[in-house]
Structures are given as structure tokens and as C-alpha cells.
């Protein structure tokens, strides 16, 4: 990826120059244009490739528009020598007119299909380090992060080691939201009743703003969070600090947290109830136990249908408690 760096910098330089004018002095987070993670970098590369392909059409069209409008304006026409009122067909021109867009879209389509597989969010990132798993739950109107391996939990911020793949498992205990950290990579929806997978990796330590990107009601605008990448040592130290100094999150504490409301300050917890994430995912899948035929009975066939349709990005929560663990393919 290093070789492609020059045009990324070029593309970022133009808006940055505009920004310098608009935002005299402040250091501004450029989000997508200032990627700090391997996924975000590849996504920016792809944007730039696609933009260049589009410009092959765009530039001639813009030139032709203004040139024709100027050249053939009525006021400028003293004689009608090249006025051709009935010229309305040319096989050659029409072949080019259809051909060029088809070729460009074909090239773009091939690139897109390749990248779609390469950057599939549920796919694990290749790395020498072992991935860390973070479970993400979107609530009304805050984010809960639980670390199944470390046993700690945080609200509206989380830390993780840079240069280590992070496997996010995402769900919602509220209306559908979307989990997005622009500098690290693209977003994925958080939905009740299922665990989604997103794999990201930060290339360097830093604080990366994250957003809730899908509207969830009144205080949706307050659903920002901070994703802080640190070194492995700092991360380990932070975990032990949280374990030593923060309060525990009880089930009751979670229920209170899940009530609609805004959390203004970031919080951390030294522990959280066992299996909390899986319980949230399976919250609505009570049919099987209580004897209703609705969701429970069909859950088995549901999940097999889904895999048949290659819904590889999601685990259906309805396929019982083990669903969230089935995503081990990403490790």
C-alpha cells in the first residue's frame, strides 16, 4: 500500500487547503481522508481509483457542455453554414457513447467485486498478532463496550492496542444504529437480535472519534464515542487499572444503563455479568422456551436459510446462544 501513498496525499491535500482557509489554525480531524487503519486506507484507495475512473467521463462532459453552449449560442451565429437542424443520428458516435461508459463501468465493476470480497467487514484481518475481541452494544443513547477476554466494560469510549486486529461483535438493545470510526474503517449496523461482525485495525496509537451513524430517536446526536488506540503495554496497564479502580457492572446496573438517556462522561467497569452480550442478542428469542411458535420454532431453519443466502456478515441471534460464538471463523 505504501506505493499508492502519493495520490492519497494529493487527494487529501486539496480539501485540506480549503480547510486551512475555513478553519484558521485549529487542528481538524479529517476523518475518512486521514485514515489511521489498514481498512480505512484501502477504502480511501478504492475511493480514489473510482474517482479517477469517473473523471474520465466527467471532465470531457463538463468541457463539452460549456464549449457547445458557447460555440453554438444563437447570438454568435452570423451565418448558418454549420447549422444542421436534422442531424440526429450517427452510428459511430452512438457506439462510442455507449461503449466508453460500458468499458469504464466494467473496469470499475471488476475492481469493486474484488474489493468487496477483500474488505468484507466480517473477514478477519491477517496479522501476526492475535485478534482482540470487543463486544459493542448500542443503547438509547450511548455505547456499551464489553471485553469478553479481559472481563471489563466501558461506556462511550474504549481502548485497544494498535497494530492488533480488533474483532468487533455488534448488537443493539435499542433501535438499529450503526457503528462507525471513520479513521479506522467503514461502518456496520448494530441490530437487535443478532451479532454482526466488523474487523478493524489501527496502524498507530491515537484517539479516533466514533459515531452512531443510524438515527435512533431523540438524543441520537449525543451518540459519539472515542476509540483510543495505544501500545500493547499501555493497553495492558489500562486494563489492570480499570480492574483495580472501577466499579463492577451488575445486571441491574446494565438494566439502568439501557434505559433511554444520555451519558455525558465516559465510564468504565471492572467487570460485567457473565454472558451479558449473548443475553442481549437473544433477548427477543424467548419463543422457544415459552412455548410460542413464532420465532423459536423456525429459528433453526432461519439460520440455515440465511447461510444459504451467504449472509456471512451476520449471525442470526435466533440460532440460540451459541450464535455469537460461531463467528470463530474470523480468528
Amino acid at each position, binding site marked *: 500500500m505504501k506505493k499508492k501513498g502519493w495520490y492519497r496525499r494529493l487527494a487529501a491535500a486539496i*480539501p485540506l487547503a*480549503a*480547510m486551512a482557509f*475555513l*478553519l484558521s489554525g485549529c487542528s*481538524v*480531524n*479529517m*476523518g475518512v*481522508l486521514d485514515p489511521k487503519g489498514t481498512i*480505512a486506507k*484501502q*477504502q*480511501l484507495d478504492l475511493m480514489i481509483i*473510482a*474517482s479517477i475512473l469517473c473523471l474520465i*467521463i466527467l471532465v470531457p*462532459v463538463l468541457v463539452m*457542455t460549456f464549449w*457547445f*453552449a458557447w460555440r*453554438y449560442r444563437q447570438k454568435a451565429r452570423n451565418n*448558418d453554414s454549420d*447549422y*444542421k437542424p436534422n*442531424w*440526429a443520428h450517427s452510428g459511430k458516435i452512438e457506439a462510442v*457513447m455507449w461503449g466508453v461508459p460500458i468499458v469504464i*463501468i466494467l473496469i*470499475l*465493476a471488476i475492481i*469493486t467485486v474484488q474489493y*468487496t*470480497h477483500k*474488505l*468484507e467487514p466480517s473477514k478477519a484481518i491477517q496479522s501476526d498478532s492475535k485478534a482482540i475481541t470487543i463486544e459493542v452494544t448500542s443503547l438509547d443513547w450511548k455505547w456499551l463496550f464489553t471485553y469478553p477476554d479481559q472481563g471489563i466494560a466501558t461506556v462511550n469510549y474504549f481502548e485497544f492496542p494498535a497494530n492488533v486486529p480488533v474483532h468487533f461483535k455488534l448488537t443493539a438493545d*435499542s433501535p*438499529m444504529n450503526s457503528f*462507525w470510526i*471513520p479513521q479506522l474503517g*467503514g*461502518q456496520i*449496523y448494530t*441490530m437487535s*437480535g443478532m451479532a*454482526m461482525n466488523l474487523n478493524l485495525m489501527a496502524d498507530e496509537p491515537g484517539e479516533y*472519534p466514533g*459515531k452512531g451513524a443510524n*438515527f435512533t*430517536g*431523540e*438524543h441520537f*446526536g449525543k451518540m459519539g464515542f472515542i476509540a483510543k488506540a495505544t501500545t500493547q503495554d499501555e493497553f495492558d496497564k489500562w486494563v489492570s487499572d480499570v480492574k483495580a479502580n472501577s466499579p463492577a457492572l451488575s445486571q441491574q446496573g446494565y438494566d439502568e444503563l439501557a434505559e433511554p438517556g444520555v451519558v455525558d462522561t465516559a465510564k468504565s467497569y471492572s467487570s460485567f455479568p457473565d454472558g451479558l452480550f449473548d443475553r442481549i442478542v437473544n433477548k*427477543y428469542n424467548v419463543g422457544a422456551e415459552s412455548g410460542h411458535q*413464532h*420465532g423459536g420454532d423456525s429459528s433453526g431453519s432461519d439460520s440455515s436459510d440465511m447461510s444459504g*443466502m451467504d*449472509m456471512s*456478515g*451476520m449471525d442470526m441471534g435466533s440460532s440460540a446462544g451459541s450464535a455469537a460464538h460461531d463467528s470463530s471463523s474470523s480468528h
Partner: protein
Amino acid sequence: MLDRIKDFASGFFVTGDPLIYGADVAIVLTMIAVVAVLSYFKKWGWLWKEWLTSVDHKKIGIMYIIAALLMLFRGGVDALLMRTQLVMPDNDFLKPEHYNEIFTTHGVIMILFMAMPLMFGLFNIAVPLQIGARDVAFPFLNSLSFWLFFMGAMLFNLSFVIGGSPNGGWLAYPPLTEKMFSPGVGQDFYIWGIQISGIGSLMTGINFIITILKMRAPGMKLMKMPMFSWSVLASSLTIILAFPILTVTLALLFLDRFLGAHFFSLDAGGNPMMYINLIWMWGHPEVYIVVLPAFGIFSEVVSTFSKKKLFGYKSMVFALMSISVVSFFTWAHHFFTMGSGADVNAFFAVSTMIIAIPTGVKIFNWLLTMYKGKISFKLPMLWTMAFIPCFVIGGMTGVLLSVAPADFQFHNSYFLIAHFHQVLIGGVAFGYFAGLYYWWPKMFGFTLNEKLGKWAFWLWNIGFYVCFMPQYLLGLMGMTRRYSTYGWDTGWFGLNLVSTIGGFLMGIGFLFQVWQILHSIRFMQKDKTGDPWDGRTLEWSIPSPAPMYNFATEPRVGEVDDWWEEKQRLAAGQAPQPKPALEPIHMPKNSGIPIIKAACWFVAGFGFVFDWLWLAIPGLVGVAVCMLAHSFNYDTDYYIPVDEIKRTEAAARRGV
């Protein structure tokens, strides 16, 4: 008792916001003024006979356009309120709840109650005249369509003062819009407002398909039809395939909310993802429904004002029809981020890109129509010239959005907002403005002031770029749509400020258009020729405004742009085509049933919104009674005698 009334009223009426009180007062005063003016000038009978019960496609078209412009005003005020809220960080001009209502109503109104009726208005004005028909195929149904749209729009707008506006976003994704998270009546206003007007849209689609297929003048083969009529056919076909999906989807959501069904709920086997799929199976074709007729308008305008035949007629037709087919296979690109997996995403990414091909071809067609023409830059042509660069840039960002892995970074950000405003304003709004300016003389018999129109044009255009170009960058910087506020630390202040300025420039542009219309009414420049633009198609062969029967004798068509060819022949000294003798003209009679029936739907919808079956059931009974009454009404048509046709023609041609 008094307490109970007070208690009811505080829940029933929207209270607590000075903006809304202000609007309440304005609405009441406007209504009093309208009633007073109509009574003073004794115009009630005239209003009822000439307009409300009219089945004349030209009058229905004008009513659509008036309603659409009013809705454009409301949707525009919503937009400016949002831009005012976002002008600076941590602004508390609007509370989050109020902001959420405003972006919801802005979206619904602009697409469903502004773009759609403006489009139907232009369909009604132009199609029958272009194809040489006396009216649409089903004039009664046409009137019913209009009134259903109008009542649906009024029901939706009523939520502003009664009960509370919907606040779940313009497509109302569940589970947010289920009773569980949105217990208020706003969401029910949304469902019923759209349902009632949606039936009207579906019927209009059917009406225009039949009109175009069955009512063309003798000799006008399909491949000799004006391009606007082709675009209407493509759009109408898309309507009849897409709108039933919307109706069913919203009906299921209604069952969830009203009867506690579980189609899209979280519990008991419901699946919100199904709603998101269904709504976009309608929603994506919907954007092509509104943009295809704009393409048709541009085709007419470019050809007329370049004084040249449209380049690549067959390519154009093929492009139109292929867009309306492919538009049904792209819906999932609205949620690449739902985790459907790489194969599904790749399919929908590629199908979306494919649409760029015919669209690109159309742009080349218009450019080559200008090539070696004689271009005069009257208002319709100016808007077309503004459209091409704007739409091409918007199309390019659309292609970027279709690249699925990149879309993970664009999705739900201001990049997306900027993209769809660029294609919807640059494509649809500019197109309909071009169409309005183009057919205005045919509608009203006078032309609009060019100078004021140019002011409006430049304000809109400069305002557009100032407003939306910064939003692309804001999106890339991570600004998400539907944020009611943002912090100083985000660094989004400068760009938002610029964007708001642009929004207000467009608002001023709109005021110039209103001024332009009022000024042109005051200092009227009558169009005495019936053909102010040196037009090419049949609508310009008759007087302006068109007589109620459109064509005194049925026109006969030999080629594409028949009226232009006829003028060429006359100029070359050939004798005009002999006109057949006048015959009595068979016309449909006016009917009061459409407006009454639509009003019954309004009552029923209002009853369902508040779960008042005592109101909903009589409303539905009223609908059934209207249907029966119309079924047994055989007095539906009459003949205009030859004498009257002669008198009308003589009066209309006097200026020639």
C-alpha cells in the same frame, strides 16, 4: 368537564413551541382570509364548478402544481430551519425532538408531496397535448387521484398542529417506528398521509400508461412520440410496479402498530430488516420515477432551444426503458452496511453502476443535440444548462457510493446527503423548473418575466453549490446525517456555516420565483401565438391557454416533431395539411364525487390515526357510498356542439 377538555386539548394539539404557535396563527389567518375573499367576491360557486369538480386534465395539472409549490414552501422552510440549527456548534435553536420531526417532514414532503405532485402536474399539462388527445384516458380517475393526493398531503401536514409530527426519518425504519419506540400518533399520520396519496399515485400511473398507449393521435406510432411522453410512460410503468410495494409495506407497519402484529417488531419473530428491504424496493425505483420525467423535459427543451432534432432518439428511448427496469434491481445498495455478505453487496454494487451507463448516454445525447444547433438561452434552457454539470457531478458521487466497500465510509454521512440533494435538486427540481417555465405559457396564456427568472436562476445555482459542496467534505470528516447538534471540537463549524448561507441563497431564489410569477401576472405579456418558443411538438400547434377540448379537430401525425415539420413545410411554401370538418366533441362531465370521496378517506385516516373507530368507520362507509354513487351514475358525458367550437376557436385565434 372543563378540565377534561383542557386535558384532551393539551394532548391533541401540539403545544409548547413558539414556532408552532406562530404557524398556528398564520394558518388560521390564512384560512380566514381565503374564506373571506371567496365570500366577498361570491366565488364559491365558481371555485366548485370550475376547479374542485373539474375533470379537465389542464385544470387538474394546475391544481397539482399549486399544491406542489405550497409544499415546496413548507419543505423549504423545514430545510432552512435545519440549516439554522446547524449553523453553529451546540446551537439550541431547535430541541432535538423538534429537529427530528423537521428532517422527517422535510424528506417526506419534498419527495412525496412536492416532487410527485409537481411531476403529476406536468404529466397532466403536457401529455394529452403532446400526443394529440382530448383528455387522459380516465378523467374521473384523474380527478380522484388528485384529490387523494391532496387529502393525503393535508392529513400529513395536519400532524404539525394536531397530535405531533412524525419523527422517525423519512422512510420510518422500524423498530424505531414501532409502537415500542414511537408511541405517539405522528407515525400514524405518516402512514395514513402516504397511504391515501399513494393510492392516488398508483392510479395516476395506470391512467397515463393507458392514455399514452391508447389515446395517441392517428399516425403517432410509439417511436414517433415526443420524448417527454416516453419518459412519462417509463415513469408510469415504474409507478405501477413500485407503489404497490409501498402500500403493502406501510399497511404491514400499520398492522404492527394498530393491531399489535409482528411483521417488523423485534419480538415474536418480527424482522425489521424485511421492512428495510421492502421500503427500498419501492424507494429506489421512486427516485427514478421522479427523475425520468425530468429527463424527458430536458430532451424537449434541449431540442426546442437548439432548434435541432433530438440526437439519438432510439438510444434515448432504450436508455429510459432500461433505467426503469434496472432500477428494480438496486435496492440493497441503500444498506450495504447491513452485513449481507460480499456476494450480495457485489451484486447490488454492480447493478447500481450499470444504471450509470444509460444515464451517461442520455447526457451525451443532449450535448450532441446542442452540437451544431442554434442555442437560445431562455429560462427553460438555462435550467437545463445548470442541470447537466450538476447532475453529472451528482451522478459521479453516486457511482462512488455504489462501490460497496467505499460505501461503508460514505453511508449515512453528509456525503450521502450532498449526493442525493445534488441529483434531486440538480436533476429533479431543476428539471421541473425547466418544465414549468417551458409549459407555463401553454398553461396560463402568458409568459414569465425573464429578468426576475434569471435572478432566481443564479441564486438557486450559486446557493446550491455553496450549500452542498461543503457537505461532501463534512461527510468525509465524519459528520453523520440527522445529528441535531455537534460540538466545537469537531471542526465542522466553518463548513456548516457556509452550507447554511447556501441554503438561504436558494431560499431567496425561491422568493424571486414567487415575485416573478406575481410580477408577470400584474404586467401580463400575453402569448398570442400559442407557440412562444418556436416549438416542435403538437402542444404548440394550438392556442395558449389550450381550449377545454384541446384540439378542435383530431391532429394527424406523420413524423417525430410533427409541428416543427409542418412549420418547415409552410415556410417552404407548401400548402397546409387539409383540416377535416369540425364535428361535435365528446367530453366528460365534471363530478363532485372525487373530492367528496377523498374527503371521506381523510376522515377515515384521521380516525385511524387516533384509534377512533367511531370516526374511521363512517369515513370508510362514505368512501363506499361514493363508489356506489359513481357506479350508478350514467350521466357522465356530453357533446360540445360545432357552433361553440367555432366561437371558441375564433376567440382564441383572434390574436394570431
